[in-house]
């Protein structure tokens, strides 16, 4: 990491929630900046230059999409969304706008810290430049040679399967919405054909997961999309 202590911007209007999130983050070695509104949050993001943003979806002066769009205009720093379960649509909208991950309220502090660490790590790795060889479970993917091995044996993937795998690996730790993945892998005319995506994810699981019915790497975010974790 470039900075000795990462700075996290917390945009949340509930003081009680801010308090425990702040104490958990500080306990984990982060510095925390706070904001209560979208406007204030964007100003803080501009002045503090945080390494990561935690954003509540139900802010008093606007919605998360506004914030993320405003932020994405000049910054690629990771954004984690905090949302209530009843707002599936808002969640998808804000992820499509460029947010990286979400947690449903109530969330466990351990889970939040794990997500924060994962995204900060990814950020740091991206700064260093990625290695062309990635490993997860018993699988090894060499992106430079386009080779996929499982327990040392080559795995045959179709071009679409490989493209999907590459997109997921490139966004490791990030929640990818159905629309986003369909656009990246199949092209803009297929964004409504979610069954294509589901079939291909299921095929990747068959080929690369130990138990395809209970995947460890290609995770389903129900109603939203997928997340790859190494």
């Amino acid at each position, binding site marked *: 990491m470039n900075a000795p202590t990462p700075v996290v911007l917390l945009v949340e209007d509930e003081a*009680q929630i801010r308090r425990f999130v702040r104490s958990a983050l500080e*306990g984990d070695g982060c510095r925390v900046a706070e904001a209560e509104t979208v406007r204030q949050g964007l100003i803080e993001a501009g002045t503090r230059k945080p390494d990561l943003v935690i954003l509540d979806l139900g802010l008093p002066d606007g919605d998360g999409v506004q914030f993320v769009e405003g932020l994405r205009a000049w910054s690629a720093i990771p954004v984690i969304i905090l949302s209530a379960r*009843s707002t*599936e649509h808002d969640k998808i909208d804000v992820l499509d706008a460029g947010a990286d991950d979400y947690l449903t309220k109530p969330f466990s502090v351990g889970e939040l810290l794990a997500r924060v660490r994962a995204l900060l790590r990814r950020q740091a790795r991206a700064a260093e430049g990625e290695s062309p060889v990635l490993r997860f479970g018993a699988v090894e993917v060499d992106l430079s040679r386009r080779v996929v091995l499982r327990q040392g044996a080559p795995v045959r993937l179709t071009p679409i399967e490989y493209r999907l795998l590459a997109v997921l690996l490139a966004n490791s730790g990030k929640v990818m919405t159905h629309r986003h993945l369909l656009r990246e892998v199949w092209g803009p005319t297929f964004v409504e054909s979610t069954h294509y995506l589901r079939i291909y994810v*299921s095929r990747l699981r068959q080929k690369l997961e130990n138990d395809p019915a209970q995947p460890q790497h290609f995770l389903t975010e129900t*109603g939203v999309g997928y997340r790859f974790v190494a």
Partner: protein
Amino acid sequence: MRTEGYSEGLTASGSSVKHYVFAILACGLTTLVATPLREQLELANTVMLFLLTVALIAARLGKGPAILASFLSVLLFDVFFVPPRLSLAVSDGKYLVTFAVMLAVALIIGQLTTGLRRQAEEATRREQQTRALYGLAQELAGALSLEQVVQATRHFFRYHLGTEAVLLFPDEGGALVAWPADAAHVLIVEPHVARTVYDSGEPAAFGGLGSGNDQPWYLPLRGSTRTRGVLAVAAGSTRGATGRGDRRLLDTVSALVATAVERLHFVEVANASQMQMVSERLRSSILSALAHDIRTPLTALYGTADSLALTRPPLPEPIRDAVESVRDQAFRLSGLVSNLLDMARLQAGRVTLRKEWQPLEEVVGASIKLLGPALADHPVTVSLPADLPLLEFDAVLMERVFCNLLENAAKYSPPGSAIGISARSIGDLVEVSVLDRGKGFPDDKPERVFELFERGTAESTVPGVGLGLAICRAIIDAHGGRIRAANQPGGGGCVTFSLSRGNPPNIPDEGPSVETDRS
């Protein structure tokens, strides 16, 4: 005597006796006026005076009096002016020609004049009718209720056609109901005739208005999509409406009324759906606000306890236990609130499903992952056939079903026992089962466990309020499936639900490309 019989015979054709009397008087008057001028005037001029009289009578009094006047004029002319006077005898044979021509001209003039008069009258009547129709159309266009339509229609028939009308509309049960409510005083409607007309969409008619037949006319009110009702018009009085024109007029009126009724119907439909939309939106915004207001303090409670439990250095053991207990209870409470809100949403009316074609395996895996620690004591074995087709369902709701079923199975079976998920295709259905090794469901009421706030064992030590299975049933019902509970022969409960296979979409094959093969 003869005259009386004559006028009686003509009365039937529509003119009154008075007109004939006037015609006779007019001819007499002409004779009286012309007699003193007999010396000054040529006979031809006298003939002209009589012809003028006939023309005036025709114009004023109609056809019958004109014919009478024609004959009477010739008679009077012969008796009082042609020599020898005061006798029917004629001195000169040439006068016979004069009589013949005079009679012919008088009859023709009478005929032409009355024809013109009738046409003028007809035009006036039509104009009045058109104006009345226009008024009716205007009134119907502005009508805001069925009552106003009925009122406008009755008013039209009563004041412009001098007859009574009753409208019949189907009620909620489909039976035809007469409007106004006191229709029986106005007109006796035969229900079965009205029914036939309504069902067939064809009018039932019995001659013309005023044909002397007491049976009313029945006309269907044909809207653009279906018949909206029946218009019944009393025969009887005939002011203004006669003959073939009746039918056209009635058709026009019934079309106007049908349009108005249809318009009201669509306005009503639009209003109802508007109302429903507004109330649905209100309900969902109340639920969202409620969810937010309940979840926010729960999130703070849970998160605060959780972060306390993670404090470094660790808290002393008794305090940490207490903190963990607070955290776990907050989490349970939050699950309970979620279920309550889900149920409220599902019961609030129409559930909007976001149905998509997807493999069942995915939602099963997601549910197991989501429950995580709650399933720590129970290994879950998933056995889905490899050839299971894609199914169409709402993934978020189906995840709730699996979560609730798995949670239930874990709660009611001994630690360490396995939970099974299996599926099979049976005809057009796919049956999914969740099996456990617990005590199973009470034998006497396996279906009742799906009822709201119903629990297998009333005073159980296992926490819960009996929402989970009720939510499952609501969701499966919304998908058009069926859910049932049973006990396995070897012990343990089994909940099975079915979903329709439908027509899964095709996935185009990519072909045998092996781009990433090492070769």
